[in-house]
């Protein structure tokens, strides 16, 4: 149990030689059309920068983002597996930048389980305690207790190759919890499991969290895992933090277009629209349809002294409704999802997804059908065209 502070953490992967630097620069010059994700400086490639985060004792923090955004690098810096190029890492009030991984009192669960193949489950779980010269009876007690919590007691004498993926991941978690670490780090622990097992293990992790009192840092690229597990979510992109907040906050109040597009399934619909200020009221106008923003949104826009301007309007598919009047669109695809239908419509050349609950459906939608959709003023997200930031924040 411990708080973790990351103050302006930075990670730069230096060039191995001058030639690499030249190659990188030449490559960038030759391929201007290719999007450069990470910042390339004279020092090297900057994988993480300006990363500041205060993690409270026993908090469950999830780092989420697309591949290459720096989430695993950040976790590995906390673990001590990567050197910290700049900034300060504090665990339980102590600066840990130069402390060896074994002395940080952390445990880590890896994506590929990282179990010693020649050891039994018991030996795998006992290994770190043995290295710390823990008395045998205490090791036995701790291993059996962890095995009981994770329901793997019957596998203690087996070797990892005789276990299924889910069982192996339980052992990996067990190996981490026997040490009762101050901070538990998990690097995409469920990525190797199939969808069903992943759901089960996700629930197991939630239960586990209630049983063991410790601080969690969890890395994933799966937003469902992030939303269901985290007390707070850190959304990253290209080495920068995009937003930190509770699952509800990042879903309801995305800080920018990236977060809005990344969180939520299906992804948020985006439109080129106009924000119109009329006195103390704000409207969004899309294809001739004018929707007034609600009081809370209006208050925030007023506070930021936002004026009329062209914007990117974001509306989630679940907040977009079929109606008699509204924005006209043609049906492209109708996907039956069980309790609802995901309707892909073409609105002025833009693909828009509308979630229609089965109960609200009067008839089937066919390719080419003309429909109209609308949305309410309290679910419209307005993003600046210039900065891609949410104008409310």
């Amino acid at each position, binding site marked *: 149990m411990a708080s973790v502070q990351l103050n302006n953490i930075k990670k730069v992967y230096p060039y191995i030689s001058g030639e690499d630097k030249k190659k990188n620069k030449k490559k960038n010059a030759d391929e201007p059309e290719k999007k450069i994700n990470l910042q390339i400086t004279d020092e090297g490639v900057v994988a993480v920068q300006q990363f500041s985060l205060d993690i409270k004792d026993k908090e469950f923090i999830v780092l989420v983002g697309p591949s290459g955004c720096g989430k695993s690098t950040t976790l590995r810096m906390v673990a001590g597996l990567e050197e910290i190029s700049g900034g300060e890492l504090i665990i339980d009030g102590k600066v840990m930048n130069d402390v060896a991984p074994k002395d940080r009192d952390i445990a880590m669960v890896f994506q590929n389980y990282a179990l010693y193949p020649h050891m039994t489950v018991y030996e795998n779980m006992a290994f770190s305690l043995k*290295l*710390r010269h823990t008395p045998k009876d205490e090791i036995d007690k701790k291993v059996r207790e962890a095995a009981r919590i994770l329901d793997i007691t019957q596998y203690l004498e087996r070797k990892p190759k005789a276990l299924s993926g889910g069982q192996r991941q339980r052992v990996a978690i067990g190996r981490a919890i026997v040490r009762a670490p101050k901070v538990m780090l998990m690097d995409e622990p469920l990525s190797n499991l199939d969808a069903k097992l992943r759901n089960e293990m996700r629930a197991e992790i939630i239960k586990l969290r209630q049983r063991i009192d410790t601080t969690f840092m969890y890395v994933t690229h799966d937003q469902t895992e992030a939303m269901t597990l985290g007390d707070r979510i850190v959304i990253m992109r290209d080495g920068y933090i995009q937003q930190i907040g509770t699952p509800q906050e990042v879903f309801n109040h995305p800080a920018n277009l990236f977060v809005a597009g990344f969180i939520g399934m299906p992804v948020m619909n985006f439109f080129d629209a106009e924000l119109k200020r009329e006195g103390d009221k704000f409207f969004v106008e899309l294809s001739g349809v004018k929707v007034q923003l609600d009081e809370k949104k209006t208050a925030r826009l007023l506070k930021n002294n936002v004026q009329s301007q062209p914007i990117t309007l974001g509306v989630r598919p679940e907040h977009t409704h079929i109606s008699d009047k509204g924005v006209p669109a043609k049906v492209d695809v109708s996907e039956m999802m069980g309790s609802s239908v995901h309707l892909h419509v073409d609105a002025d050349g833009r693909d828009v997804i509308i979630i229609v609950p089965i109960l609200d459906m009067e008839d089937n939608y066919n390719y080419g059908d003309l429909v109209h959709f609308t949305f309410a003023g309290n679910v419209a997200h307005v993003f600046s065209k210039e900065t891609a930031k949410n104008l409310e924040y």
Partner: protein
Amino acid sequence: MKKTTESAAAGSGGSSKMHNTLVYFRQHWQLYVIFMLPAFLLTIIFRYIPMGGIAIAFTEYNPIRGIFGSEWVGFEHFQRFLSSPDFMRYLVNTLKLSVFGLLWGFPAPILLAFLLNRILSAKTKQKIQLVLYMPNFISVIVLCGIVRILLAPTGMVNMMLGTSFNFMTMPSAFRTIYIASGIWQGAGWASIIYTAALSNASKELKEAAVIDGANIIQQIKAVEWPAIKDTVLIQFIMSVGNIMSVGFEKAYALQTDLNLNASEIISTYVYKKGLLDGDYGFSTAVGLFNTVINVILLVTMNSLVKKMNDGKGI
């Protein structure tokens, strides 16, 4: 009932796999022939047909009369060799050279591979590997020449020690010179196989060991050694199987009249008897004796290793 069904399913799975393999083989037999025929022919021509030459060991071989025209003497050559007063000296010299060579030389490439695996910079690693591999490409005779120059009374070693020993004339120094130069020449090259096996050691596993608190030795024990253990065992069995096959070239090239007591081994004796004295029957018998001991050692060591290693061996 469930178990029976499962095992039946497993059985049918196994037979269907076999069936698929046979179908694939029938469809692509030409590929197998092209792939295997050269190796098969080479083995027959250079490994099996010459076995007929073993018969020379039981004859008073005369090259003009041929194997079947020469006088059949049975085990006479074997009796002559085993009862010779020098037999024990040659056998002990051969065994000492190969056993000590194995004890010192076998772990060297493994240790080298562990060390190379610790080098983080790929470029530095490549450069070091290049330097380590180079001696392997020096011919044995050139190597022996270098050794003789370095160990000469006015050579670099004596200069560094401030002495003027003639190491090449000292029987007590022969084995050390032979084994040390062998390690210098071969350890780097032999480490390739272990370096390759070590690349299979999971990076995540190593990191897990670091977080678990393992020091370098414990990391090697828990992560790297299990990754190369099977390779090491196979190499060890093969090495033991070759324990009597000490090549004559190097021993002969490092031999002087004064170190003969330690440097005369079975293979140099075979060379001298067979090619220099023309006693082909006798030298073939000595060579065959050598081979039989090798085969016995190989089979014994393999069964010992299998017993100790969960049935894994050759």
